[in-house]
């Protein structure tokens, strides 16, 4: 008499692995639909740093308009863990990766710089929410954010603007003034 629990778990593992393997070769409609229904990212995509390895840091910057004049760009900077200790503890990686996740999600939905589709994306709204939540000076009337990619090439530093948001009115935004 077979142990039905064992047969059941074996079937679950075979199906889970098969869907995982399918997700690697073809992230198409079927796997996208499955991923939507299966919670907690249980269908993995194992392509670490490939095919396009991270060769630049994504930085989120924003500026505020006050009295008709724009202030300087400021960065939502969470810092980087020191090289001597990050092999053990690296909490900064989680926050930097979170920003990078939102940025790559935003850039995926933006076919062209002038396309306004991106404004409706959850990544755009989330990034906007992040900068609006930052402390700001009193009397700010609007805000704008941008994504800047930076990389070191030999001794030089390369900076590239990857995305610039629209200007957003702050009239009804809750105040986190400083």
């Amino acid at each position: 008499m077979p142990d039905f629990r064992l047969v059941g778990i074996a079937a679950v593992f075979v199906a889970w692995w098969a869907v995982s393997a399918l997700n690697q070769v073809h992230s198409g409609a079927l796997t996208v639909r499955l991923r939507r229904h299966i919670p907690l990212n249980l269908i993995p995509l194992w392509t670490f740093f490939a095919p396009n390895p991270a060769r630049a840091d994504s930085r989120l910057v924003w500026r505020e308009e006050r009295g008709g004049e724009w202030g300087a760009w400021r960065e939502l900077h969470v810092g980087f863990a020191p090289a001597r200790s990050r092999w053990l503890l690296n909490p900064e990686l989680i926050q930097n990766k979170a920003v990078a996740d939102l940025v790559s999600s935003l850039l995926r939905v933006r076919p062209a710089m002038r396309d306004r589709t991106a404004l409706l994306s959850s990544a755009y709204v989330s990034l906007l929410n992040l900068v609006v939540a930052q402390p700001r000076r009193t009397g700010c009337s609007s805000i704008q954010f941008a994504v800047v990619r930076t990389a070191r090439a030999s001794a030089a530093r390369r900076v590239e603007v990857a995305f610039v948001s629209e200007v957003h009115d702050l009239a009804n935004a809750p105040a986190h003034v400083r």
Partner: protein
Amino acid sequence: MFANPELLISRLLFVGLVIESLEIFQLRRAFADDGMFSRSTLALLTAGTRWHMRIGATMGTSAAVTVALVAQAVAAMVVIAAGTGARAGILSAVICLITNGYLRVRRQIGGSGAEQLTFIVLVTFGLVLIAGGSDDARRLGDGFVAAQVVLAYFVSGVSKAASPIWRQGEAMTGILSTEGYGLPGIAALLSAHPALDKLLCWTVIGWEIAFPVVLITPEAVMIALLAGGVIFHVSCAVLMGLNRFPWAFCGCYAAVWSTAMLLR
């Protein structure tokens, strides 16, 4: 790792969970109302997703997150001490499954492949328990974990081999030139010696693509491939700050080992 719970290597994964708890404890303010992982930000992020994602992402303040991560750290330490064969270890592993699931869904973004593998292993253990937790069920669990690890390395290797950046040997210099994953000294060294970068890129590609044979090769080759994995992950931790990968992936090598032994 489930079939041989007495092995210390079977508990490495739970060291990673303690480390995750310490890291999120340092970030606990980011889960407050004005933080990066605030409920309002995550409500916006998950607005168009399924109901379970939306509810999980907005459930609990930073205090709830703190409680979950403390529970996870304590439970993971019990597993490290007792193993997944003892009753206390089994119960603690289930607590890790619940807290880790909560922390994942509550954070949504900023996760890594190491975290994903860790959670897959915890869910696998939950299924093993549902199936009775017998030796056969544990061996099945080990087989599934081994299959996921083999898939992970193989796909990653093929994906790198398909990339001109990796094939031409420019990937390591590029990655190590970033501030997030980089080390300026090593990046400069590789930049000055492109052949070394190319050698490193092809070594990683070759090892990752070859990894599946670990399940069927003679023991000496298997040990060499697993040792290569340890060196690879420790190097990535030291050079790139990918600190969770050695605990997650090397922690699964016990499952790879026991599955390979079964296939002999």
